[in-house]
């Protein structure tokens, strides 16, 4: 044992007068680190209540509870996370998975209370002193627990797509679909926004499971046009998908299409439910568009005899005559319609009500009537010279092409309008070999057309001239040509907060000659098949009407739906109108059920 070993321990005294490590609490405050995982903060205005925080919480410390201030909004479930600090382990996974980045943690870590129940609180709703803390744990930039980007849809190149009317989108393969399906957080917020309330998370789940037959069954619960909607749906679901808040929304439409693509038409009968036994009731349906056929499908499922009257030679309505085949191939539309007829729905083609069959006779011969004749009359611009022979309607051109007729547009055309019909008229014209200019009175961002359609339209070489207001159509030197005079517009903000309005600048006018001018500025309904008295009785207002619950009109037997009976005028809304009318008609035809319900309500 050395002397050194005996002495060196006394070195400890050297440190006796050093500054201590410890902090004097509570005299000195010791805040948590800037990224400390302390108590929860929720920015309730940005939170959409998707519940991913609840799903990921391994401690079961989060409940989703209704918060009145946020009740009943599209894209917001109205629920907000409530934390049980008796269970929380402050792992912060809830912050990491939060689709809206509304959930955070403050750097506050001290909370003293003698009431154990106070540690059970709704962050951001119950007032807590750390709610506005600037510091605390946030999800780091570039850190994701769910891929923010969607799987891109394989498509024909623009050059390739111009060569024919072949479908532009090619569809996901299985690997792509499973990857995309994987991005769904299964909150179901989309279900509320989908007009037909399709079981979106469920059928996406079936893709992950590889069970496409189940997926198809799920889709038919609410939509007998899955092949169609999988291609051309306006997909409001995607606009509210929480995954889309920080990244790109789940490609719900393409996933729907993927399921349909996986199932062969001949297997439909085996997979899908069959109608129940006949009830003996007869229902007439006017119009074989998506609204009419949807009603027909669900009524037939309920065992009623259904007859659909259609003025055209084929079914589908606007889906066939208004949507070109490069977006929706006929075979796909037929896949949907054929299944509807295969369960016993009878469609009488070339039967125009008011001409071939009288509306009054339907009222007499059937137990209920569903009308869904849509918007088939193109709106007019009401400018001078509009009746020129070389001014064509966009709808007519689409219908001609759908029926294999040559619309005779020439080589240089101008399309007026910014909706989907305008875009389709333009793209069809490109395929027919014309040079296309689109004149639109507002900005491209104001266009009501689908963003993708606008993009593809540009890809295919259409020139979009925004803020161009047509003022006059003038005869050209040649009868086969026509001139249009249009003026540039400047956009003026609406002081009341509406969308900006275009104001014509009369000093900036242009005149250009075209082979034809395609007008596609909107449609209205054609109600010629109804007498004025009936129109009055059904309470049509400028060609449209707003039905009561279950699509019922003021006439006992008559139900309506589709574009002329809703504001959104898209296929999926028409499909839901048809389905809802079917529910209504079913109730109406089963008076027992009806009275039982009324008794219950009173």
């Amino acid at each position, binding site marked *: 044992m050395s002397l050194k070993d005996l002495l060196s321990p006394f070195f400890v005294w050297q440190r006796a007068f050093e500054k201590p490590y410890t902090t004097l609490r509570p005299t000195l405050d010791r805040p948590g680190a800037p990224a400390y995982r302390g108590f929860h903060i929720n920015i309730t205005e940005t939170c959409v209540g998707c519940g991913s925080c609840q799903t990921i919480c391994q401690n079961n410390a989060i409940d989703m509870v209704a918060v009145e201030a946020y009740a009943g909004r599209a894209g917001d479930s109205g629920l907000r996370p409530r934390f049980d600090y008796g269970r929380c382990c402050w792992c912060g996974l809830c912050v990491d998975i939060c689709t809206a980045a509304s959930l955070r943690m403050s750097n506050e870590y001290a909370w003293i209370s003698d009431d154990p129940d106070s540690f059970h609180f709704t962050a951001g709703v119950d007032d807590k002193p750390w709610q506005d803390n600037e510091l605390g744990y946030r999800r780091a930039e570039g850190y994701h627990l769910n891929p923010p980007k969607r799987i891109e849809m394989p498509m024909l190149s623009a050059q390739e797509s111009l060569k024919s009317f072949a479908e532009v989108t090619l569809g996901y393969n299985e690997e792509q679909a499973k990857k995309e399906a994987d991005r769904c957080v299964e909150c179901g917020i989309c279900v509320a926004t989908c007009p037909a309330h399709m079981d979106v998370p469920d059928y996406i789940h079936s893709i992950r499971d590889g069970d496409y037959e189940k997926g198809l069954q799920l889709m038919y619960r609410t939509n007998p046009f899955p092949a169609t909607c999988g291609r051309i749906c306006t997909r409001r679901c995607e606009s509210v998908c929480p995954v889309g808040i920080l990244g790109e929304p789940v490609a719900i439409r393409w996933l729907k299409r993927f399921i349909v693509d996986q199932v062969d038409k001949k297997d439909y009968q085996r997979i899908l439910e069959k109608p129940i036994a006949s009830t003996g009731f007869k229902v007439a349906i006017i119009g074989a568009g998506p609204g009419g056929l949807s009603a027909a499908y669900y009524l037939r499922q309920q065992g009623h005899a259904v007859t659909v009257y259609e003025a055209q030679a084929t079914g589908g309505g606007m889906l066939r005559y208004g949507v070109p085949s490069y977006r929706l191939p006929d075979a796909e539309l037929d896949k949907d319609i054929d299944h509807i007829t295969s369960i016993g729905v009878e469609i009488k083609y070339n039967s125009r009500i008011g001409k071939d069959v009288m509306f009054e006779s339907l009222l007499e011969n059937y137990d209920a009537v569903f009308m869904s004749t849509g918007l088939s009359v193109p709106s007019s611009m*009401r400018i001078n010279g509009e009746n020129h022979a070389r001014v064509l309607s966009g709808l007519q051109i689409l219908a001609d092409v759908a029926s294999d007729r040559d619309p005779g547009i020439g080589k240089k055309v101008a399309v007026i*309008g910014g*909706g989907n019909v305008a875009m389709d008229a333009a793209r069809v014209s490109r395929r027919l070999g014309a040079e296309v200019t689109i004149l639109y*009175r507002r900005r491209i961002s104001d266009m009501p057309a689908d963003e993708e359609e606008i993009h593809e339209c540009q890809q295919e070489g259409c020139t979009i001239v925004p803020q161009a207001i047509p003022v*006059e159509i003038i005869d050209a030197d040649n009868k086969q040509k026509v001139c249009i005079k249009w003026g540039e517009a400047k956009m003026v903000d*609406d002081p009341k907060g509406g969308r900006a309005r275009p104001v014509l600048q009369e000093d900036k006018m242009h005149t250009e000659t075209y082979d034809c001018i395609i007008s596609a*500025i909107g449609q*209205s309904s054609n109600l010629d098949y109804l007498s004025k008295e009936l*129109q009055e009785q059904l309470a049509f207002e*400028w060609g449209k009407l707003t039905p009561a619950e279950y699509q019922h009109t003021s006439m006992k037997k008559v139900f309506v739906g589709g574009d002329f009976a809703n504001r959104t005028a898209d296929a999926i809304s028409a499909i839901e109108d048809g389905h809802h009318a079917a529910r209504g008609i079913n109730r109406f035809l089963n008076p027992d059920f009806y009275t039982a319900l009324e008794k219950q309500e009173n």
Partner: protein
Amino acid sequence: MNTVDEILDYAIEQEQLAADFYEDVAQRVETAGMKKILLDFAEEEKRHKKILLAVKTGEHELTPEQEILDLKISDYLVEVKTSENISYQDALIIAMQRERAAYNLYNDMAQKVPDGKLKHILLGLAKEEAKHKLFFEAEYDERVLTDN
């Protein structure tokens, strides 16, 4: 029409006539919906009349300096004749064009009188009509020109 009061009386009468016009058409149209819209238009004209009455009693000031947005929608539309089965679009076009005519009238008159109180009133009335026109044009822009 040389005095301010005369001008105002004329303008008030015009508003009343407009209201009468819409009520008259409303009696003849076939659908209840259209009838309601025309009666709404008539109400709108009666509201205009009230404002002018208030101007006459001095309770309200006209504001000829105010800038009113001109969307110039009606300027290029084909004229519409009133009939029993006019559409909503037709009704709006009629309304816009009537307001435009009134605006032009007061404006023209104002150009012909010397500066002074009278000119001030005429210009003020023109602006008032421009406001009405904007009301209908904005409605047209919103409801009719949806896809355009």
